[in-house]
């Protein structure tokens, strides 16, 4: 669960690096749920400076290469202007139930936020 948007705070970076390390260690990341300002990780309109990381693009890559399900909370997204129109590849918009469902089905849930 990621609660902060890209760049403003480190939460999204930490979550991404944690996911990558977990996959490299042979674990399965079933789903990353983006809530609160975390939904802002899902915009395809970012153009970060060339000499810095591209937060959105590397989430997309994680989804494509490792089948990680990137779910953006619809209620939080509507408040913040994340809709199908500006949704980056690899993300999907769905309900809060997906968070609870993941918490039930997974062995662990780790929250990254502010």
């Amino acid at each position, binding site marked *: 669960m990621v609660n902060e948007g890209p760049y403003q705070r480190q*939460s999204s970076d930490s979550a991404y*690096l*944690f996911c990558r390390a977990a996959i490299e260690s042979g*674990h399965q990341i079933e789903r990353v749920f983006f809530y609160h300002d975390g939904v802002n990780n899902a915009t395809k309109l970012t153009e970060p400076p060339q000499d810095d990381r591209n937060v959105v693009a590397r989430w997309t890559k994680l989804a494509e290469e490792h089948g990680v399900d990137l779910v953006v909370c619809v209620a939080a997204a509507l408040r913040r202007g994340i809709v199908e129109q500006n949704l980056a590849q690899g993300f999907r918009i769905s309900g809060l139930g997906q968070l609870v469902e993941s918490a039930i089905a997974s062995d662990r849930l780790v929250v990254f936020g502010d």
Partner: protein
Amino acid sequence: MLHIVNKSPGERATLDSCLAHVRPGHSVLLIEDAVYAATKGHAAAAKIQAALATAKVFVLAADLEARARAGAVIDGVVQVDYKGFVELVTQNPRVQSWL
């Protein structure tokens, strides 16, 4: 149980909240700006020292290095990389992030 703290003790009260709920045998992981808490001479280092009496304290090396504090970690605190972070999560049956 694994407790994760991510904010600097010079800025937020989350380290104190966390430490008030650490039980014997628990693990505490300091990431992001929280890594400062485990550095020599920091006003919060005494709290970490006290916690070490009954709990294990880990600190994320990547965040220490970014902040130029990897050489200043107090004795008894263990540096881990992201894979170590993953191991801590798998070894502990529950995780609480003190946000």
